[in-house]
């Protein structure tokens, strides 16, 4: 057994050894160890290199606030996780871990040259150091910074794990299963109350796990804890461990991230790696305790320098001595006990150094009794040792004078600058903080949420204080929940209450400008950096933070914020409460993307809607594309065809004979009621009053600003019934807009709106043979020019199915759209497909649909328009009912800017060299003007067109309607293309092909 393991101490099970590796070397720990405690038990303090200076670093804490000991963990392909805190990762047989930020090895790292060049990397170095010579930026500085930046290495493979999401509703959520949290639960619990306690650690107990010496109600602390947990569980209290409350959101919603499998040697089947809980609690108790502050002195980051409370935890919870010859340096009573415990465990404490001139008599007596040398009114001015602390230089302080330094040999340095309440979750609620002069820290004050703070979280130290306060807060929330709560009286022996003073940097006899006294370990920010920031003009703590990056690392300033504030306030010559604290934001600890994504990944990232005809398309080899959450068949390639050849064939066969197209995704809204026609008159630009039953019309929908929002063919099925179609992507938006006007502007209209998009399957037949194919199947109307002309609609029967039949065309050919109840769509499609074989029917996809419509100049809203295009800009003034007194957008169209000359207007473009333009390409009038050129529009649609015999394009061009025949230019990276402005109709401008 290692010389650092202390049998009889700690909660680890030494009879169950666990082997794991760190940087390829095998180590043995015990069941219950964290990676950090197991490495410390093997005498390993060096666990990583720092971010900026690549300084050797070891674990400084024992919990989730750890800034230094970040490791990578892996368990096979895709299961590599960087930036795991070694203090939180439990070991299991076979775990592989690696250190970070080192090259080529942790012990010998070339990046550490940054440390020698540290003067270059002071606060704001990004803004200063790399400014000259300018040419160095791209080739030297930036690649160097990029290579050096970042923590850890991102995994390269897809994550094979599953992540779960859950909701949880409870009456009382208690964050923190330490003495205050447990006492709160005990005091609040009542029949029928749903109480949940969460704790980020592997087991509940909080500080009790580190203080076995205490006796509570006559029982040793750990026995009391066992009894208490059993009693709570028996009463139905739910205790969730390895679960971090990462954020506190509105109306008492908290997010909890539960780590389910990261501590297990083998992965159980069908179990998520992590589970994100969204909890809505009626009342919340925050019992998160306090975080210990480091002291700020030169060399306070050397491996072996750690928080005194952490050393106490390693000893009492894990049975590990962090050193055999430690020195304690402190400004708070609590660290003395760490020294006492270590001495009793067999270490030789070299000295307890306290910055204060006076310390409680009982502490002095106990130190004397244990034979520990004590130095009061002393400061620490340096540490020595390369990869581990080997000595510390201490100096007496008298007033402002720092006396001569004296070297003390040691193998660990335990420091404590006092304690800071964990304010993070409270701050997420926009809770107000109040400065406490005695504790020189902020305490939680007021919040709007139904939330109370208990124990060390509001500055109370000691187990008895935590238990008493927890019980009182528990009764307080019980009362808020309508219960009396339970009385509680506790007696605690061997408690360790304490007090201390807060420090800035420790006084030194050396040049403070050369001190490497770290405030933020993870971002390598020193006290000198903070003072420099103030000297260079930063006045707000928010500016100091951003200039120095203090508190901006993944530990969210858990250790650095209060020290940083004290130093900045001193440099500014203002009291700390006036300088204020920066804002804490969720998540409390780094949280995986997987936990946030939950089930929403891969195919489940978003909903995929499929039409009833989709399976047919899939069986016939369709290539699909996503359109407004639908997946639509884009084209149907035959063997050997690429997209271009398939699309050309689909277009050709449609124009030569007949094509069939699944238009089911078109948005459909049923507008019904006595006032339906009035409603339509007001919503759409077109006149509707005179549209006869059995006729349909192309409708244009504007916003009140006058810009095109949507379009579609609208059929009047009866006096008070319209079958409205919308664009595929616009269906929900149009429905919302209609509901908005109907409900809030015209509530007097008697109209009902129903979304029927998914109730109908819509099959479009287009081509010279469309009528011939369809006619034999239709009952109720003759498909002749007289009986059923273009833009007619009717309810009839098609192939024995009830149908709404429209004679419309989005191709310029004879066209029909057959709507049948959705479940019948596939059957009808197959009937039409079979019947169409004699005509050489072709199934076409959205790509051919786009070509066919562009050849006719039919616009796609959102492609040829961009939210700033009016009907006049689009050349569709004919669709505007100018005689109507009002419609949505009418007044908007009269706005001076919309009526002005020189607006971008939709035109056709034909390239002089017959090349196909790129959609989105910018257009200029004069290709020889100096760069930057004046852009006068862009290409909105561009296709190769066999029907036109050349590539065609639509474009928005400034004043385009008055520039017919003019040549514009499209500059591309390799050349400039000239194109002639034309009308937008490229095929059959007289519409002769629409006639049966």
């Amino acid at each position: 057994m290692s010389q650092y393991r202390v049998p009889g101490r700690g909660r680890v099970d030494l009879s169950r050894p666990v082997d794991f590796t760190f940087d390829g070397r095998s180590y043995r720990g015990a069941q219950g160890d964290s990676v950090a405690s197991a490495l410390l038990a093997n005498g390993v303090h060096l666990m990583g290199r720092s971010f900026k200076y690549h300084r050797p670093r070891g674990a400084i804490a024992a919990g989730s606030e750890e800034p230094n000991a970040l490791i990578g963990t892996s368990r096979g392909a895709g299961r590599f996780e960087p930036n795991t805190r070694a203090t939180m990762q439990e070991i299991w047989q076979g775990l592989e871990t690696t250190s970070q930020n080192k090259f080529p090895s942790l012990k010998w790292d070339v990046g550490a040259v940054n440390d020698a060049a540290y003067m270059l990397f002071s606060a704001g170095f990004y803004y200063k150091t790399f400014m000259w010579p300018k040419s160095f930026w791209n080739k030297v500085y930036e690649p160097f910074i990029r290579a050096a930046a970042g923590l850890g290495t991102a995994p390269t493979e897809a994550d094979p794990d599953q992540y779960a999401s859950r909701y949880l509703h409870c009456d009382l959520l208690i964050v923190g299963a330490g003495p205050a949290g447990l006492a709160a639960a005990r005091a609040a619990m009542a029949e029928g109350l749903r109480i949940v306690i969460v704790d980020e650690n592997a087991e509940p107990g909080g500080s009790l796990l580190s203080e076995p010496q205490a006796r509570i109600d006559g029982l040793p602390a750990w026995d009391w804890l066992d009894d208490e947990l059993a009693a709570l569980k028996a009463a139905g209290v739910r205790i969730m461990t390895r679960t971090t409350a990462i954020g506190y959101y509105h109306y008492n919603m908290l997010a909890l991230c539960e780590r389910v499998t990261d501590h297990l040697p083998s992965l159980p089947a069908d179990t998520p790696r992590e589970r994100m809980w969204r909890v809505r609690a009626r009342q919340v108790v925050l019992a998160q305790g306090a975080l210990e502050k480091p002291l700020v002195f030169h060399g306070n980051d050397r491996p072996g320098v750690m928080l005194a409370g952490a050393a106490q935890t390693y000893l009492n919870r894990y049975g590990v001595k962090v050193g055999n010859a430690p020195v304690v340096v402190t400004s708070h009573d609590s660290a003395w006990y760490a020294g006492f415990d270590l001495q009793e465990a067999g270490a030789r404490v070299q000295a307890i150094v306290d910055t204060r001139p006076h310390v409680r008599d009982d502490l002095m007596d106990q130190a004397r009794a244990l034979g520990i040398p004590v130095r009061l009114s002393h400061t620490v001015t340096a540490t020595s040792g390369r990869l581990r602390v080997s000595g510390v230089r201490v100096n007496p302080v008298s007033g402002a004078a720092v006396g001569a330094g004296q070297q003390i040999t040691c193998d660990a340095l335990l420091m404590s600058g006092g304690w800071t309440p964990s304010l993070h979750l409270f701050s997420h609620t926009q809770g107000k903080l109040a400065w406490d002069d005695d504790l020189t820290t902020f305490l939680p004050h007021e919040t709007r949420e139904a939330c109370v703070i208990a124990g060390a979280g509001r500055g109370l130290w000691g187990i008895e204080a935590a238990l008493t306060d927890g019980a009182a807060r528990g009764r307080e929330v019980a009362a808020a929940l309508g219960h009396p709560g339970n009385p509680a009286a506790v007696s605690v022996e061997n408690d360790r209450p304490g007090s201390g003073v807060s420090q800035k940097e420790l006084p030194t006899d050396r040049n403070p400008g050369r001190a490497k006294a770290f405030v933020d370990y993870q971002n390598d920010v020193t006290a000198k950096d903070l003072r420099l920031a103030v000297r260079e003009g930063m006045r707000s703590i928010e500016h100091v933070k951003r200039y120095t990056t203090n508190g901006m690392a993944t530990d969210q300033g858990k250790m650095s914020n209060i020290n940083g504030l004290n130093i900045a306030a001193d440099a500014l010559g203002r009291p700390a409460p006036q300088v204020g604290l920066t804002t804490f934001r969720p998540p409390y600890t780094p949280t995986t993307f997987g936990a946030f994504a939950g089930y929403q990944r891969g195919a489940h990232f978003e909903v995929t809607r499929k039409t009833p005809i989709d399976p047919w398309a899939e069986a016939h080899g369709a290539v699909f594309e996503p359109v407004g959450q639908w997946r639509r068949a884009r084209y149907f390639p035959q063997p050997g065809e690429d997209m271009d050849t398939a699309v050309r064939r689909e277009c050709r066969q449609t124009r030569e004979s007949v094509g069939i197209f699944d238009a089911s995704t078109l948005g459909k809204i049923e507008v019904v009621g006595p006032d339906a026609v009035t409603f339509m008159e007001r919503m759409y630009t077109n006149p509707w009053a005179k549209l006869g039953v059995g006729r349909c019309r192309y409708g244009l929908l504007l916003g009140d600003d006058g810009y095109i929002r949507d379009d579609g063919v609208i059929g009047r099925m009866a006096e008070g019934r319209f079958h409205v179609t919308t664009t595929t992507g616009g269906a929900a938006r149009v429905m919302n807009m209609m509901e908005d006007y109907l409900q809030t502007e015209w509530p007097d209209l008697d109209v009902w709106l129903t979304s029927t998009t998914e109730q109908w399957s819509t099959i479009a037949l287009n081509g010279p043979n469309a009528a011939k194919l369809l006619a034999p199947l239709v009952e109720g109307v003759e498909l002749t020019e007289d009986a059923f002309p273009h833009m007619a609609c009717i309810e009839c029967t098609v192939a024995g199915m009830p149908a709404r039949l429209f004679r419309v065309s989005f191709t310029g050919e004879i066209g029909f759209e057959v709507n049948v109840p959705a479940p019948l769509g596939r059957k009808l499609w197959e009937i039409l497909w079979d019947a169409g074989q004699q005509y050489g029917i072709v199934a076409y996809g959205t790509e051919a649909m786009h070509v066919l419509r562009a050849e006719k100049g039919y616009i796609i809203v959102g492609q040829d328009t961009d939210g700033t295009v009016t009907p006049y800009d689009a050349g569709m003034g004919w669709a505007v009912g100018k005689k109507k007194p009002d419609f949505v957008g009418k007044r908007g169209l009269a706005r001076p800017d919309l009526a002005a000359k020189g607006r971008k207007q939709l035109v056709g473009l034909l390239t002089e060299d017959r090349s196909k333009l790129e959609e989105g390409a910018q257009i200029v009038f004069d290709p020889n003007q100096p760069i930057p050129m004046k852009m006068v529009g862009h290409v909105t649609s561009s296709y190769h067109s066999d029907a036109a015999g050349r590539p065609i394009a639509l474009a928005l061009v400034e004043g385009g309607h008055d520039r017919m025949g003019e040549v514009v230019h499209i500059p591309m990276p390799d050349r400039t293309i000239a194109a002639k402005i034309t009308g937008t109709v490229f095929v059959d401008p007289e519409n002769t092909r629409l006639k049966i």
Partner: protein
Amino acid sequence: MLLIHCPYCDETLPEAEFTYAGEAHVIRPPDPSALSDDDWQGFLFIRSNTRGPHYERWRHFHGCGRFFNAVRDTVSDRFLTTYPAGQPRPALETLTAASEDRK
């Protein structure tokens, strides 16, 4: 996530069921064509951008589908009240006391 009281369903439900619909009590004039350009611009584009209690519209999109009005404090993000569309705007003095009710 906010909790919002739908005045039609008379239930307090999570924000995910609702969609925001802009400032409330911006009434579309009965005859827009009679408006000057300035007045029309005011209706179309100019909003109060309030710091504090803000009259605004929400829709219970994934519920009853109705639009309603609300007063929400834009600083604290807390609702002071919600009420059906068409009702006059409630006076702020009557609301502040009730603001903490719906926790």
